[in-house]
Each structure stands twice: as structure tokens, then as C-alpha cells.
């Protein structure tokens, strides 16, 4: 409560200062940014009292003080802070890669692929079916020609099934969860990053065949897609190798070094036209698994130490970018889509886990970690905007609203799953028997 009062006083102070100054040189952005950090931190602490993840608080703070509500942070300030957000997401991707162990992947790779493929299939079917069913109510679809409507559904669905590595990593970092549900969810989410890019490329090709795009944007050739993914693995692998060499021969200033590596990796990926998140995840994965255990542990600790402020910044800015009015306007359509997607994720994950003979706890809880959405999905939305400008505005609004809902609901569900699986250190273990019982005995 004390922090809320202080925050209110700071808000009043900022409002008093604003008329006295002049906009320029980014000082207004800095002023807003400082306030946003403190606001996100405070709201994040409040949400933990309510049993919610901190990142939900960061998002709420961003929404509350962002341009679409109290406007303590202006739209121009949010725009000016985009590089900070980009750096944050790159760091999160690198951290995600560092969290993955080769031995774990080798042991559970087949299981992850089975769960991921069925989960994506079921979610795709559920979302597509609902869009078709709600066709008359969905903006653009209601008046679109049949082939255009099909293209819209295909592209929408391909983006709607994406997951959020950033939310997963942030929550695992916040809770310190280490267990089978945490590992499985992280593995699926990271693999899905590759799968979504592939799926979107296929969807794009099919959509173009059905409804030739009105824009003159060139098609993504299979070779380009192969380079985007293969190149990301190659560039990320090389970068990870360099990081491993640094860890071996220099091993100093690790926090600063990892920050620079992520910034460099993100810029390198842009220059090489490869998938940024995949590049950094691969870099983190290679660095973690090639380096000596002690050295890679030190790097992971350095990353985890710098992660807390990064999460505050990233999710607060993500919240500030949510256009509340637009989300509210399309809620009657987006909520059923979100529910359908969640049901699809649940069913697919459940069936996939059975097929893979996963543990009962994974079968019951892992789906909850796959509801969140962010990062990749937002990037793909802008790609569609370039391809079908006439469908861009309604699709963008719908997808960003869907992402906003899943971004808030997802972390709550994932925390619940981790808690139910008894994987949060220090938290009560309601399903301890379930979490620890061997599969054969169930």
C-alpha cells in the first residue's frame, strides 16, 4: 500500500513537471521510462499478493499508465523505447537457449515433438473452425469473397497458434521452477518458435495460391524460409561458439558481456535476414552446452541476475502497447477465439502427451504453459499487413487483442500449472503425490 501511495505521489509529481519542460533529446521518454519501471515494479509486487505472476502486474502497469489509459507514458515515448524492448526480447531468447540442455533434449525430443505437433494441430482446427462459424460477425470476413475469407482464416490461424518463449522464460525465472512440467513446457515453446515460422510460411504460400495478394510484396520462397531458419541455426551456432570461446579464455564481466552478445546477436540476425529469436536461442543453447559446466553456470547466473529488470521493462512496455479500447471493442469475438484456442491447446497437449507416454503431471499441467502469446506472433501480424493491406487492419486488431488476452491469462495459468505440479520452490504442493508418482504406478 505504501508503494501505491508513493507511486501516486510520483504520478502527481510527473504531471506537475510536464508543463515546465520542453520535449526533446529523449528526456521525456526517459522520464516516462523511469516512472513506468517503478509503476511496473509496484504493480508486480501487488499481483504477487493476489497469487498472480509478477509479469501480469508489469503488463497491467503498462496498460494502466500507457497511452491508452492514464497516458503517463506517451505513445511517442513508447515508440522511442522500442530498442529497449527489442534488446529485452533478445536477452530473453538467449536466456531461453541457455536454459536448454542437450541431454534433456536428447532424452525428451520425441516426446516434445509429439506433444507440439498435436497441440498445434488441435489449436489450428479449433481456431479455424470457430472463425468459420463466426464468419458473419468477424470484421472483414463478413463481406469478403470466399477465397479471400479462406486466406484470412489460414493466415489468422497460423499466427494464432504461436506461443510465447518470453512469458515462459520470465515465469520460470520468477518462480525458479525446475521440474518436468517446466522443462517440457520450455522445450515445446522453444521448438514451436521454429514450427510457427515454418507453418506461417506454408500458410502464406497456400493463401497466396487461393487469393493472390493485392500488395506487390514478393512471396517468401522456400529457399528464403530455409535460410531464415537454417541461417538462424548457423549464425546462432557460430555466435554461441564465440561465446563459449570467450567463456573459456576471458571469462570476465559476464553480465555486460551477455548483454552485448544479445544486442550483437539481434543486430546480426537482422543483417543476415535470419530469425532473430531462433538465432539467439541457438546461441544460448550452443554456449551452454559447449562450455565447461562451471563457466556456463556462471554465465547463466549472470543472465538470470540481469533478467529481473529486463522482464520489468519488457512486459511493462508490452502492456503500454496494448490498445485497451480496441481490445474491448472486439472482445465478443476474441474471447470465443481465445477459449477455442485454449481448448485446442489443452486437447492437443493431452492427446500428444498420451501418445508420447508422458508422465501424468505433464498430461494434466503442461498445456497451461502453452496459452501465452507475444513476440513472434506480433512480428507475424505485421507481415500479413504487408501482404493483404485490405485485411490488415481487422486482422491486426483481432490478433493483437487475442495476444493481449493470452498474454494476461497465459502467465496466470502457467503459474497455476507449476504450482499444481509442485515445481515452485517454497510453494505449497497441492498435487505432490501426482507430481512425484512414477508413471507406471498410475
Amino acid at each position, binding site marked *: 500500500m505504501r508503494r501505491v501511495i508513493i507511486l501516486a505521489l510520483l504520478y502527481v509529481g510527473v504531471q506537475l*513537471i510536464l508543463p515546465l519542460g520542453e520535449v526533446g*533529446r529523449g528526456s521525456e521518454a*526517459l522520464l516516462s521510462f523511469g516512472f513506468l519501471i517503478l509503476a511496473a515494479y509496484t504493480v508486480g509486487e501487488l499481483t504477487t499478493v493476489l497469487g498472480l505472476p509478477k509479469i501480469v502486474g508489469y503488463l497491467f502497469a503498462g496498460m494502466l499508465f500507457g497511452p491508452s489509459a492514464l497516458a503517463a507514458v506517451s505513445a511517442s515515448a513508447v515508440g522511442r523505447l522500442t530498442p529497449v524492448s527489442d534488446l529485452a526480447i533478445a536477452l530473453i531468447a538467449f536466456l531461453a537457449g541457455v536454459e536448454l540442455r542437450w541431454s534433456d533434449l536428447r532424452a525428451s525430443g520425441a516426446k516434445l515433438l509429439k506433444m507440439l505437433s498435436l497441440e498445434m494441430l488441435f489449436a489450428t482446427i479449433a481456431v479455424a473452425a470457430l472463425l468459420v462459424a463466426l464468419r458473419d460477425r468477424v470484421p472483414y470476413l463478413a463481406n469478403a469473397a470466399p477465397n479471400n475469407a479462406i486466406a484470412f482464416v489460414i493466415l489468422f490461424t497460423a499466427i494464432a497458434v504461436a506461443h510465447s518463449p518470453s512469458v515462459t522464460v520470465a515465469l520460470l525465472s520468477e518462480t525458479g521452477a525446475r521440474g518436468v512440467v517446466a522443462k517440457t513446457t520450455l522445450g515445446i515453446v522453444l521448438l514451436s518458435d521454429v514450427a510457427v515460422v515454418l507453418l506461417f510460411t506454408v500458410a502464406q504460400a497456400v493463401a497466396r495460391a487461393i487469393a493472390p495478394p493485392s500488395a506487390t510484396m514478393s512471396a517468401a520462397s522456400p529457399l528464403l524460409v530455409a535460410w531464415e531458419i537454417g541461417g538462424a541455426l548457423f549464425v546462432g551456432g557460430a555466435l554461441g561458439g564465440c561465446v563459449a570461446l570467450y567463456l573459456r579464455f576471458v571469462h570476465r564481466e559476464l553480465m555486460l558481456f551477455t548483454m552485448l552478445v544479445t544486442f550483437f546477436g539481434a543486430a546480426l540476425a537482422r543483417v543476415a535476414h535470419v530469425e532473430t529469436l531462433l538465432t539467439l536461442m541457438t546461441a544460448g543453447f550452443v554456449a551452454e552446452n559447449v562450455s565447461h559446466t562451471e563457466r556456463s553456470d556462471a554465465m547463466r547466473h549472470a543472465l538470470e541476475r540481469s533478467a529481473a529488470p529486463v522482464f520489468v521493462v519488457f512486459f511493462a512496455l508490452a502492456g503500454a502497447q496494448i490498445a485497451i479500447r480496441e481490445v474491448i471493442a472486439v472482445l465478443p469475438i476474441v474471447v470465443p477465439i481465445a477459449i477455442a484456442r485454449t481448448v485446442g491447446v489443452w486437447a492437443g497437449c493431452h492427446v500428444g502427451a498420451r501418445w508420447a507416454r508422458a508422465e501424468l503431471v505433464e498430461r494434466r499441467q503442461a498445456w497451461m504453459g502453452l496459452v501465452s502469446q507475444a513476440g513472434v506472433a506480433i512480428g507475424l501480424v505485421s507481415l500479413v499487413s504487408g501482404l493483404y493491406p485490405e485485411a490488415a487492419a481487422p486482422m491486426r486488431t483481432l490478433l493483437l487483442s487475442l495476444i493481449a488476452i493470452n498474454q494476461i491469462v497465459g502467465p496466470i495459468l502457467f503459474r497455476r500449472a507449476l504450482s499444481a505440479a509442485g515445481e515452485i520452490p517454497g510453494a505449497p504442493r497441492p498435487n505432490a503425490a501426482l507430481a512425484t508418482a512414477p508413471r507406471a504406478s498410475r
Partner: protein
Amino acid sequence: MSAPFLLVLIVAGAYLAAHWAFERLGDRFLLVSGAEYLLLGILLGPQVSGLLHASVLDGFAPFMTLALGWIGAVVGSHFYVPLLVRTRTVLYTVAFTQAALTLVVCSGLLIGALAWLYELPLPDTVAPAVALAAIAVASSPAGVALLTRHRVRRGLVVRQIEVATDIDAFTAIIAFSLLLCVAHEAPQSAVRAPTPTEWAVISVAIGFVGGALFHLFVGSERNVDRLFVSIAGAVILASGAAAYLKLSPLLPAMLIGALLVNTTRNRDEIREALMRVERPFYFVLLIFAGAAWDPGTTAWWIIPALVFLVTRTFTKLVSARLAARLNGMIPLLGPHWGRALLGQGGLAIAIALNYHLFHGSLLFPDVVFTAAIVSVMATELSSARLVHSVVRRYTRRIFETPTPAEPHPALPPDQR
């Protein structure tokens, strides 16, 4: 390849290489790292290679403001009152006298020198001269820190140098911040332009109110990561507010730093959180400063810089000697102890950058900035050697047992 990308790449490579080299060379040869980053910035900037354009530097302006604020907060965190009261008053008297004399004498000399060099009336040169004098007061604490780490026992001379560098930083920040309040332009949007006194009150209020609020905000938090988030938010907010009002971020951030370390129980954690990114900020600030350097339109830009260097050296040495003499400390400190204060570092650059980048309407921003750069490049590398020359000569006196009949009043009770 984009310029920011190139900048980060070069900065990263240079930082790590220089850090690694200086870690090894610094202790052995008593070299203080810093000036090489400034040189690197100059080489990358528009004056030499042109790899970094002015537009790129403009994009990093918020970051520079934050770096200024962070330096201010770190300076403020040195003023921990329970530790300060354990130091003998005479050391503060000497330090304050030395800083005040340097400020006043330097201001006077530089007002005259600038008026003569640029053929301007004396009142026109007051603002740049006072800014230069504030820069002249600042002295680098890096030299004495390097020595006390491994080589020198902490005694009266070392403590005097430490106190003097802290007081120099305090005086320099106060003088410069007040200058900006006095020379503040009227904002276009305000109904009535605040007076210089009101600007000064606003500047101090951002620091005091901010510090008090952040003290309550931080509470009894002991987790360094969480503290880091709060403190980063606090410094960013205060720096942003000051820069937005065209005031110096150094003063509010210094007050916040001082208030936080004095009013909370988690002083060590707060200092750890502040120190965590101090060095990267400092070095990046030096590179930006080097890249932003512009000698101006005159071909003889080096002359005012040399005049500043000579004036500062002379004033610092004389002021230190006079301050010691007035307080009866010459026997303990020696007549040349002011040499230990000749090294200049990050704070000098921060003040000059603040003047140069954010207050372009003031006179001679290029001259002020060039003078600070020349001074740092000339003195920082050897600042530890300068301190060593003083400490080595007078260390014997520190541990000398005074005659029981007449203990020197400056010595702490346990050494009397």
C-alpha cells in the same frame, strides 16, 4: 551495417580489450583506465573517422542523460554520514577550503582569460568560465582507489585525498547545477518562467523529494536484483525529470544517492546495486563524449584548452597548499599534496557533456568540452602516479609517532 550496431560492436570490443589489458597493466604500472575510451570515441567520431554521426549520438541522448544521473548517484552514495562523522573535521575544512578556492580563483582567472582570448565583455564569459571552474574543481578518485587496493596503507594523507576528491565532486556538482539554474532559459510552455532561485529549489526538490520517496519505496528490501530495479527506476526518473526541465541530472541524482545510503538499513545492497553498472556506464559515457567532441570553428581551439589546463594545475596546487597552511596541516600533508588532486575523470567529462549537449544556447560549449577532454586525457592516466608521488613522500609522516606531550590536533584519537 547500421551505425548503432557498429558503435556497440566497437564499444564492446574496446571495452573488453581495454578492461582486460588495464586489469593487468593498471596495478603494475599504476595506470588508471579511462582516457583511452575518450580517445577511442574521438577516433570513431565525426572529427576523425566519421563512423559515428551526430544523428547516432542524438539517438543515444537519453542513455547519456542516464549515465550522468548514475554518476551523480554514485557520487552521492559516498556521503554516508556515520562514516563521515568518524573523520576529523579538519580534513573537511581543508577539502572545502581547497575546493572553494579552486572554484573562485579559477572562475576569476578564466573569466579574464576567455574575455581576452575572444575579445568579449567580461559578463559574457561568466557562464563558460564558471562551468570550466566547476570542471576544474572535480578530481578523479580512481588514482587513490587504485593505490589503496593493493599498495598503500590507509592513513591521514590517503584519507585527506579521499575526502578531498569527494568534496571536490560535491562542490563541482553544486556549482555547475546552480549555474544552470541561473542561466536557465525560460520554458515556452510555462505561464510564468521560474526564477533562478525557483529553478534551484526545483532541482534540489527533485533530489530531496525523490530521495525521500524512494527511501520509502525501497523500504527494507535486501534483494540486490529487486533493489537494482527500484534504484534504476529512481535514477532514470530523476535524471529524466531534470533533463526534461533543462537542469543538470547530476544534482538530483547525487541527492538521491546520498539520501538512500543514509536513510535505509540496506546501504551495502544499495551501493552494490549502484556499483553494478557504474563502470560500463562510465566507459560508455567516455566513448560518447569522445565521439561528440567538436573543437569548434576556430583553428586555435587548443589554446583555450591549454589555458584551462595551466590555470587548473596552478590553482589546484596553490589552493591545496593554502588550504593546508590555513588549517595547520602542512607538516602532515606536505606543501605539494594538491598534486594528488590533479587527475581528472568521469565527473569532469559528465559536467562538460552536460554543458555541451544539453545547453547549447550557453556560450562556448565547444570550448568547455574541449578543455575538459584535454584535461582528462592529460591527467587521468597518470592520476594514480600523481597520488603515489604524494603518498610515498609523506606516508612516513602519517605513521610517525607524535611526541606524547604535543599531539597534533588533526590526528585521530587512536593515533595521538
